[in-house]
C-alpha cells in the first residue's frame, strides 16, 4: 500500500497500488448490510419513467441538427462533395466538410490519441465524409439525401477468402499475437486422440439500443462541452481534443446515461468530431444522432474469425497439446486484432501449446472490441472442440474438463488468484439435471423435435485499471460520490452507492452518485469488465479515508468505531455522523494495478448449460433452458450481477444462432445494416435463464475482492448451445451462426 497524503495543493487522497494482496476488506466488516444484496437500481425510477437523460436529450439554445453523409463506395478518393441541392433545401444552414479533421473510423477504447483521421481517401463503404446542418432534423435529413459524393474509385479488398493467405502478424495489442510452449506438432503426432477442426465466426455488431449521438456545444471560453454516448469519458476526452487540435482540458464530455455500449462506445465515433467541427464553424450547438444504419456502417464491428483448434490427448483424456490459431480482420493501419485465443492461454493444462493471431487487411469498417473481445468468439471454437474431443474419448464433457484442470497458469507458471471452474461445473450439473442427458447424440426425439443438452466452460481474464473517485460527506450527513465512471446498464450507480453506504454506514438513500461527467475525477470507465473492481475500489479507498477522518473527529480510532444508519458508535458513545462532519469532508480515492497483476493469474470462471430442441423438418433451433453458474469474486449486487450474466448469455444465444453481419463481396458494404436484418435475440428467443453465483473473494484483485462479470456470461455461452445442438442431432456445425440451412442436410431422418 502506498502513501496516504495531504500534499500541498492536492486533495486529501488515499491511493493504493495493488502490489500486495489485500486480505482485509471493510466490506466484510460493514454493519450496514447493503453490500451484495439484490437491491433495486438507485436510478431505476428515472429510467422506467423516461426521465433519465441520454446523450441526444439535452436541451440547448439555438440548437442545430446535423445529419451525417456517408461515402457510398468501398474505396476511392473524393473529388468533391456536391452539395448545391442540399444547400437549397429550406432550413439547411450548411454542408460541412473537413477532410483532414473528420475521423476515418472510431478510436479503440482507452487510447489517448486521436483515431485515424482524414476522409478524402475513403477506405470502407459508409465512411462518414460530411455533415449537413439545418434548423430542423427533417431539413438536415432531406439535405443529406441530396448530397452527392463524387469520387475516383480505387481497388479494395472486400472478400476474406480472397485475402486470407496474405495474413500478417500484428504488433502486440491486448495480448501478444503469438505465444508457444513445447512442440505442438510433435505432441499431436504422438497423441492417442486428436481433434483438428476449423471454426468460423462472422462479423458482429454490438447493436446497443441507443445509436451513437453527440451534442457539441462550444462555450465562450473555447471549451467544448459534448453530451455524448461514451463508455470511457477521460480517454474519450483526450481522443476528441487531439482530433480537434485543442488542449485536453478544453474538452468536457458528459455521459450520464448510456443506452448500452458493449464496446461500441469505448472510443470516440465519427458523430462526435463531425458535430464538434460543425458547431465550431457555425458557432452554435449541433446535435448529431447517428441513424441505425450508420451505426452498422461506420462505428465498429467485432471481427470475423477463422480459428483452427488442435487438441491432442492421451487415452485418459489428458491434453498433451493445445493449439489455437486465429485469423481476424481489420482496416489497413489498425492494429486491433480479435484476441480469440485469450482464454486458451490458461483454460486447460497441456505441456505443448500454441496461441497465434494473424490479421487480414480488408476494406471493411473498423474491427474493435465487442463484449468479451477474444473469449466471446474464441470460446465458441475452443469449447466446441473440447466437446468434439469428449465425444471421441467417450468421456463426459465435464469429466474431460476436470481432468485437464491446471494447478497453476500453464503458460506463465504463476498461481491462480482463485479458480472455481470445477465447482461451477459440478454445481451446474446438479442444478441443471445434467445426469439426465443422453450421451449419444440424436437419441431423444419427441414428435418432430430433437432434444439435447450441452455445456461449456466460461473463462474471462480479470483486469484492474487506474481509477479515481471523490466522496464527500455533507454537513447533513449525506454522501456524494463523484467520478467520470459510466453506467452503461451495468449497475455502476447502484454498486458504487452500495460500497459507499456499506463503508460509511449510511442508508442507501443517503448516498448520491454522480457519474459520467468529465469534470469529475477520471475513472477506468466501462470496458473490459473492469468497471466495478476499478471504480468500486476508488470509492472504497475514498471512504476508507473518510472513516479515518470521522474517527479522528470523534477522538477514536477507525478500528474501534462502528458506522451504521448514519451514526458513529465508539467508546460507548453514539453520535450522528452529521455532527462529526463540520462544514463537510471530502476525500479522493485512487486505485492502480500493481504487481498482483503478474504475480497471479486473475480470472473469473463459470459453466454454461443449455437444452435445445431442433425441428427435424425445418432445422429450427429453440433454446429451451439455460443455466450459468459463475464465480467472479465478491458479488456486489446480486440483482444487477445476475442481469449482467443474463445479458452475456443472451449475446451467446445470438452468436450461436442468428447474428451475422454480411459484407457485400463487391464493396464490403454491410448488407444487413438494420435491426430487421441483423438478428439479435428477441424476447421469444430467450428462455427464463437461470443464473447462480458461487461465493468467492479475490484478495489479489482489489480491496473490494470483486472481479469482472459483464463479459463472463458470454464466454462459452454460445458453445454450450452448439454442443447441445450436436447432442440433439449429431450434426456439428463449425460455421457460426448455426442457422437452419447449415443443419438441414445433416439432420437424421
Amino acid at each position, binding site marked *: 500500500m502506498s502513501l496516504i497524503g495531504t500534499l500541498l495543493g492536492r486533495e486529501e487522497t488515499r491511493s493504493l497500488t495493488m502490489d500486495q494482496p489485500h486480505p482485509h476488506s471493510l466490506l466484510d466488516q460493514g454493519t450496514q448490510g447493503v453490500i451484495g444484496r439484490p437491491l433495486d437500481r438507485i436510478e431505476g425510477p428515472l429510467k*422506467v419513467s423516461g426521465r433519465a437523460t441520454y446523450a441526444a436529450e439535452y436541451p440547448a439554445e439555438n440548437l442545430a441538427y446535423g445529419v451525417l453523409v456517408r461515402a457510398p463506395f468501398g474505396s476511392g478518393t473524393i473529388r468533391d462533395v456536391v452539395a448545391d441541392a442540399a444547400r437549397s433545401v429550406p432550413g439547411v444552414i450548411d454542408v460541412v466538410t473537413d477532410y483532414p479533421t473528420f475521423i476515418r473510423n472510431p478510436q479503440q477504447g482507452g487510447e489517448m490519441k486521436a483515431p485515424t483521421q482524414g476522409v478524402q481517401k475513403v477506405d470502407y463503404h459508409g465512411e462518414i465524409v460530411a455533415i449537413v446542418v439545418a434548423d430542423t432534423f427533417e431539413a438536415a435529413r432531406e439535405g443529406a439525401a441530396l448530397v452527392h459524393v463524387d469520387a475516383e474509385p480505387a481497388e479494395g479488398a472486400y472478400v476474406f477468402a480472397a485475402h486470407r493467405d496474405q495474413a500478417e502478424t500484428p504488433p502486440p495489442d491486448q495480448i501478444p499475437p503469438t505465444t508457444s510452449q513445447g512442440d505442438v506438432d510433435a505432441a499431436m503426432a504422438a497423441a492417442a486422440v486428436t481433434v483438428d477442426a476449423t471454426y468460423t465466426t462472422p462479423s458482429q455488431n454490438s447493436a446497443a439500443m441507443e445509436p451513437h449521438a453527440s451534442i457539441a456545444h462550444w462555450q465562450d471560453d473555447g471549451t467544448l462541452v459534448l453530451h455524448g454516448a461514451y463508455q470511457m469519458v477521460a480517454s474519450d476526452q483526450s481522443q476528441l481534443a487531439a482530433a480537434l487540435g485543442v488542449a485536453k482540458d478544453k474538452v468536457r464530455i458528459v455521459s450520464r446515461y448510456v443506452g448500452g455500449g458493449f464496446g461500441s462506445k469505448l472510443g470516440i465515433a465519427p458523430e462526435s468530431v463531425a458535430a464538434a467541427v460543425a458547431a465550431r464553424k457555425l458557432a452554435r450547438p449541433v446535435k448529431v444522432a447517428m441513424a441505425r444504419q450508420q451505426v452498422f456502417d461506420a462505428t465498429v464491428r467485432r471481427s470475423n474469425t477463422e480459428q483452427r483448434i488442435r487438441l491432442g490427448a492421451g487415452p485418459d483424456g489428458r491434453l498433451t497439446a493445445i493449439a489455437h490459431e486465429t485469423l481476424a480482420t481489420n482496416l489497413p493501419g489498425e492494429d486491433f486484432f480479435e484476441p480469440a485465443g485469450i482464454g486458451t492461454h490458461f483454460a486447460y493444462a497441456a505441456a505443448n501449446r500454441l496461441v497465434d493471431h494473424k490479421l487480414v487487411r480488408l476494406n471493411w469498417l473498423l474491427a474493435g472490441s465487442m463484449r468479451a473481445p477474444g473469449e466471446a468468439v474464441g470460446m465458441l471454437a475452443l469449447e466446441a472442440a473440447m466437446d468434439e474431443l469428449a465425444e471421441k474419448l467417450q468421456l463426459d464433457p465435464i469429466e474431460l474438463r476436470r481432468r485437464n484442470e491446471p494447478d497453476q497458469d500453464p503458460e506463465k507458471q504463476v498461481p491462480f488468484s482463485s479458480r472455481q471452474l470445477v465447482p461451477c461445473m459440478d454445481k451446474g450439473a446438479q442444478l441443471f439435471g445434467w445426469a439426465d442427458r443422453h450421451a449419444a447424440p440424436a437419441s431423444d426425439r419427441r414428435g418432430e423435435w430433437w432434444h439435447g443438452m450441452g455445456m461449456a466452460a466460461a473463462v474471462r481474464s480479470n483486469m484492474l485499471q487506474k481509477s479515481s473517485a471523490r466522496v464527500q460527506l455533507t454537513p447533513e450527513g449525506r454522501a456524494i460520490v463523484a467520478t467520470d465512471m459510466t453506467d452503461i446498464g451495468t449497475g455502476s450507480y447502484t454498486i458504487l452507492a452500495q460500497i459507499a453506504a456499506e463503508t460509511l454506514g449510511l442508508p442507501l438513500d443517503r448516498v448520491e452518485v454522480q457519474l459520467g461527467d468529465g469534470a469529475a475525477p477520471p475513472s477506468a470507465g466501462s470496458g473490459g469488465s473492469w468497471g466495478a473492481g476499478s471504480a468500486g475500489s476508488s470509492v472504497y479507498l475514498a471512504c476508507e479515508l473518510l472513516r479515518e477522518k470521522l474517527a479522528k473527529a470523534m477522538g477514536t480510532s477507525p478500528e474501534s468505531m462502528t458506522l451504521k444508519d448514519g451514526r458513529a458508535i465508539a467508546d460507548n458513545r453514539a453520535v450522528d455522523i452529521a455532527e462529526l462532519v463540520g462544514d463537510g469532508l471530502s476525500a479522493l480515492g485512487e486505485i492502480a494495478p500493481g504487481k498482483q497483476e503478474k504475480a497471479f493469474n486473475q480470472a473469473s470462471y463459470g459453466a454454461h448449460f443449455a437444452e435445445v430442441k431442433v425441428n427435424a423438418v425445418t432445422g429450427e433451433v429453440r433454446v429451451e433452458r439455460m443455466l450459468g453458474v459463475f464465480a467472479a469474486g465478491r458479488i456486489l449486487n446480486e440483482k444487477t450481477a445476475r442481469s449482467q450474466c443474463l445479458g452475456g448469455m443472451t449475446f451467446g444465444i445470438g452468436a450461436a444462432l442468428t447474428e451475422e453481419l454480411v459484407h457485400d463481396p463487391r464493396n464490403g458494404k454491410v448488407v444487413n445494416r438494420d435491426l430487421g436484418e441483423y438478428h439479435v435475440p428477441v424476447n421469444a428467443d430467450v428462455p427464463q435463464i437461470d443464473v447462480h453465483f458461487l461465493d468467492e473473494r479475490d484478495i489479489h484483485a482489489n480491496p473490494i475482492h470483486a472481479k469482472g462479470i459483464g463479459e463472463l456470461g458470454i464466454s462459452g455461452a454460445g458453445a454450450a448451445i452448439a454442443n447441445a445442438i450436436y447432442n440433439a442431432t449429431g450434426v456439428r456445425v463449425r460455421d457460426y451462426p448455426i442457422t437452419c440451412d447449415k443443419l438441414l442436410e445433416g439432420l437424421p431422418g
Partner: protein
Amino acid sequence: MRFTINGQSHEAEVDIRTSLLDLAREHLGLTGSKKGCDHGQCGACTMLVNGRRINSCLTLAVMHQDDDIVTIEGLGTPEALHPLQAAFVRHDGYQCGYCTPGQICSAVGMLDEVAKGWPSHASADLDAVTLDDAEISERMSGNICRCAAYPNIVDAIREVAGERDEVAA
C-alpha cells in the same frame, strides 16, 4: 394541428415530415420515448395512441389530429410509478434503460390486448387466451432489449398481470 398528449391538449404547427416520435422528443421535450432504429424494428419508441401501442417512429405526427397519445412520461413519475414501472424496477427488467420506456408502454398495450381476448402466435386456444410466459415473450418480441433483460421483463409483466387477475377475481 390539435392532439392530446399525456392528458394535456396541444395545438402546434408541425412539419409534415415530422414523425410522432420526433414531435415528442424534439418539439415537446418528451424525450422518454426513444429512437433506436427509426424504422419500426426495435420498439424503443412505443407509445399508446388511443389506447393502442404503436411504433411512433413509423407514423407521421400530422396523422394524429385529435388523437389521445400517452408516452412513458404520462404513465407515471419517479415519485408515483405506474405498477408496471415499479415492477420493472423490482425485477430489474432493464439495464441501460434505453428500450425500457418502449417496453413498458408496449406491456401496457399488450395487457389490454390480452384483456380483450386477442390471440397471438403462441396461443394454443384462439378463443381462450391465458397469459403464460410464452404468451408474454411472444407478445413482447417487438421490443428489442440488447442488454437482454427479457427474463426479468417477463417476470415483471407476469407479476402485474397476476395482480390484476387477482383484483378481477
